[in-house]
């Protein structure tokens, strides 16, 4: 007799626990406002039909390293090579040339600031240690390409020059 009561109360307790669990899932099933799923490719530009939020990355998000240029196509990189030394993966390669400046002195300037996105581990050491703050992170995160060579980027734009006043 005792075992029968235990058996039945066991079934009751089991069913009750399942119903408690299902009450939570049921609550969300019937309240569409609680949906947190974002429709990814649609919400990129914020005009997808079902997208609730526009996908905006935070300002500090480490997407990829870029070198900002101003309207005159000038950047702040002096070609000192500190970022190259600090990078743990050998992601950055600086190819510099020495140019004769306006005052007649020889000066180092970059020819190419090569950045291999495929090897970057987003540790932010290059951005942090650059003495002239020439680098920063962009919020771009869609890095997939069909060809590996596309991941090797030259950060300084063609024809760009050093900003005035940056040593």
């Amino acid at each position, binding site marked *: 007799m005792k075992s029968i009561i235990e058996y039945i109360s066991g079934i009751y307790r089991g069913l009750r626990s399942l119903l408690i669990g299902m009450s939570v899932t049921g609550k969300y099933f019937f309240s569409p406002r609680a949906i*947190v799923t974002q429709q990814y490719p649609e919400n990129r530009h914020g005009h997808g039909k079902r997208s609730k939020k526009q996908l905006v990355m935070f300002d500090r*998000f480490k997407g990829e390293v870029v070198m900002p240029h101003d309207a005159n196509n000038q950047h702040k990189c002096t070609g000192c090579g500190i970022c190259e030394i600090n990078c743990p993966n050998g992601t950055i390669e600086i190819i510099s040339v020495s140019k004769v400046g306006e005052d007649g002195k020889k000066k180092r300037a970059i020819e190419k600031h090569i950045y291999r996105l495929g090897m970057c581990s987003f540790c*932010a050491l290059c951005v942090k240690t650059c003495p002239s703050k020439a680098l920063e992170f962009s919020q771009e995160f869609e890095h997939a390409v069909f060809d590996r060579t596309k991941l090797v980027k030259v950060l300084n734009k063609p024809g760009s020059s050093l900003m005035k006043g940056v040593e």
Partner: protein
Amino acid sequence: MTEEISSVVEVDDQEYIINFGPQHPSTHGVLRFVVNLRGEVVKNLQPHIGYIHRGIEKMCEKLTYQQIIHLTDRMDYLSAHMNNEAVCLCVEKALDIEVPERVKYVRTILDELNRIASHQLWWCSFGMDMGGQTCYFYGLRDREKILDIFEETCGGRLLLSYNTPGGLMWDIHPNFQQRIKDFIKYFRKKLPEYDKILTGNVILQERTKGIGHLSLEDAISYGVTGPTARASGFSCDVRKNYPYSAYDKVDFKEILYTEGDTFHRYLARMEEMRESMKILEQLVDNIPAGDFTAKMKPVVKLPEGEYFQRVETSRGELGVYIISKGDKFPYRIKFRSPNFCNLATMNLMASGFKIADLIAISGSMDLVIPDIDR
């Protein structure tokens, strides 16, 4: 392979050997168990590791102390911030630097956020191992809130690289405190849902109570740490016993159980989330003003000697041992990872139970494979 195993373990003609992993979804990574079975019952189990060995310790010998940090992210990726902190604390100890109070507070807060995020992900995957796919969505929904806090302040979501020897990479974001307060308010409401969905569930209870028992003696002699050991009654919380950062200023309870079975390992982690929230509440309003980093030379050179520092990650005790010859690179660096030691008890716990229980047991250990292999 059969010869290799049978030379170690006696296999009679009633037993057979199967490979569990390395591509099995419930090993959560590339881990291989070689399991001796008699019928459905596990007789012996040998973990085979090394599928994701990257030689992090060796790589560190050619990197400066600032550069090492980003590699420690990739060991136990779910406790990235604690791993970073371990190396930083060790370097600071060696150089005898006192970091500003602000740094200590922010580090502690991020530790606890990281712990909650890690336990949330563990809860999802444990639920899924037990056959409850629903858990995954609830856990990840709440974890997303923490990842947003990380993303806003640190710039990374999983691999933070926010610590640097001497302090932090940059100051916290102005929204940091408000977001944490919102999260605590939100998560206090959502945590009871976890209990309703999984903890009280009859299937989970039947499958975990009394399964995979680990005694206190074994926990100590195998060097098990973290919630796994605390469920067996081994008081091993580094935060409590050897406080670092701001843990000496907060009041929290060390979760201890004596049963040591799978269900209590589960409960220990659930309770830890509540304790972590308590710690966050005590710290979040009191972050002192000040610098976010101590004054450091650009090239960090440790004086000759040997240094050791341990921290409590979400899975147990992580030790960092540095031998320096006075260079800017460590001569040798050794990580004592919690998962490696915890894994050693698998045979002990799983022997005598069914193969389905093996999944419950390995799920309750919360193994992160890259931390085992490094």
